[in-house]
């Protein structure tokens, strides 16, 4: 559970960074000068933060109770 959740957060973080960088912040198409969705750059930052937040989740998630 711990590892799965951590990896999921890391992947989600990188995914957010990827789609924001390449698709949501008007990077390569000169037609658009503003981001295509509001606060897209904040999503990129959120992606970076999610990756590092995964470390906190990995350490803080309680162990499964052994009966």
């Amino acid at each position: 559970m711990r590892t799965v959740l951590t990896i999921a957060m890391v992947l989600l973080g990188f995914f957010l960074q990827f789609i924001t960088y390449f698709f949501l912040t008007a990077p390569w198409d000169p037609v658009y000068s503003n981001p295509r969705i509001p606060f897209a750059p904040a999503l990129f930052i959120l992606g970076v933060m999610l990756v590092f937040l995964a470390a906190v989740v990995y350490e803080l998630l309680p162990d499964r109770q052994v009966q």
Partner: protein
Amino acid sequence: MAEQPHALPYGVGRFSHRFLILLAVLTGVVVWGLFAYAHQLAEGLVVKGLRDIGTMGGATWGLYVAFVIYFVGVSFAGITVAALIRLFHLDHLRPVSRMAEALTIIALILAASCVVADLGQPLRGIINLFRYARPQSPFFGTFSLVVSGYLFASLVYLYLDGRRDAALMARRPSRLQGFYRLWAAGYRDTPAERARHERVTLWLALAIVPLLVTAHSTLGFVFGIQSGRPGWYSTLQAPGFVVLAGVSGIGLLLIIAAIMRVTLPEGKEVHVGIFRWLGTLLLFLTVVYLYFMVAELLTTLYTGTRHEAEISRSLLVGEYAWLFWGSVTGLVLGALVLSLRFLPTNVQTRLPSVSPRWPVLLLIGALLLTGLLALQGLDLISPFSATTARWLASVAAVLALLALVLSLPYLSRNLVAASVIAGILVNLAAIGKRILIVVPSQTHGNLLPYGTGWYQPTWSEISIIVGLFALGALLYTLFFKIFPVMEVHAHEEGAA
């Protein structure tokens, strides 16, 4: 648990009279900085010495941007040292690990504050940055990725690294027990938790090192990829920024480590080996940066355009010469002082000893003269003519140099003192270099047919920067009054 009063380690929770006086002084300076900022907000950016490039003959970036670069540079050392300790098992450096992590976080907060101080409408600037910024731009990398991503990563590292100590501190009865319990978040120091922590810090260190190299390089790219601005457009900007960041950050870390060694009851844990290791690293980085400077200057002087040559001339013999040669002198002398320990022991012992009273007196004289000249430079007083001021500046420089030369025999025998002096010298040089990177290209690097510009910081800019330094010192000292500056040992645990 026994309710016996037991002093917390590393001076945590102890507020002596001297410490309270220090707090009062720092708070006073912070309040003065806030007053200057309020004045700037109320009167507008016209109170700064910044003006439009070309049409108004000024510079649009000045002291604030120079100090953004400086503070981001200082932050480099902290997390680098912490990551290097983890990656290469440099356990003898562990006593400075937390000092370095806290230095990173506070330096990044100060860097962000400098950005805010530079904005006429700070709130609008911050909101629009997250609404409209382009992650492809180096500005985004500098002002938001560095400050939010890098700061967040450093906070995570500090938090996780401190959990074990928080758990140990929570076992002692104190007013901060609840805070430590919250920080520890159920940590019990079991083998499984320790192994997990080892894995996490390894991965964090591996992730943070490329992030910080990217962050410092993008800061260099802000200047380095501007082809329309002679003096900035250079391949060496990015690596130069990374190396100078290391120089200023490690220099400051050496100063902090020496202060902790002197002031803490357990100060001897910050052993001489740490100063030897960090001093060697600082020496190496300083020499590399000097090489970069020479390579850059030779290239622009031999093959640069007319505009680049003009900037180089203003640095070497023009109006910025005093700052340029002052910075070079700081770096060279810093390297020299750090090299003293490589002298053979018999040479060190043969050096004549001088009473420390003389260098101190000479230094006080140099500082007094510098202070007077600085006040005159800000138009607050004007007792000297321009020629007298130039002469007095030369006298101050000679006095400071003489003080250093007389201290050399002592510094060759005292590694900690040598590290502190070198740390101060390279940091002053790094501040000078940051101003030289930011300002001359705007005042002397116009491709359009404008005359040369002029920039002089006003009292409000200087007060805000001094206030930020005081804020940093205040946050740093307060943090280490509520959390141990070094790892709590097993015997401390047993004492609880």
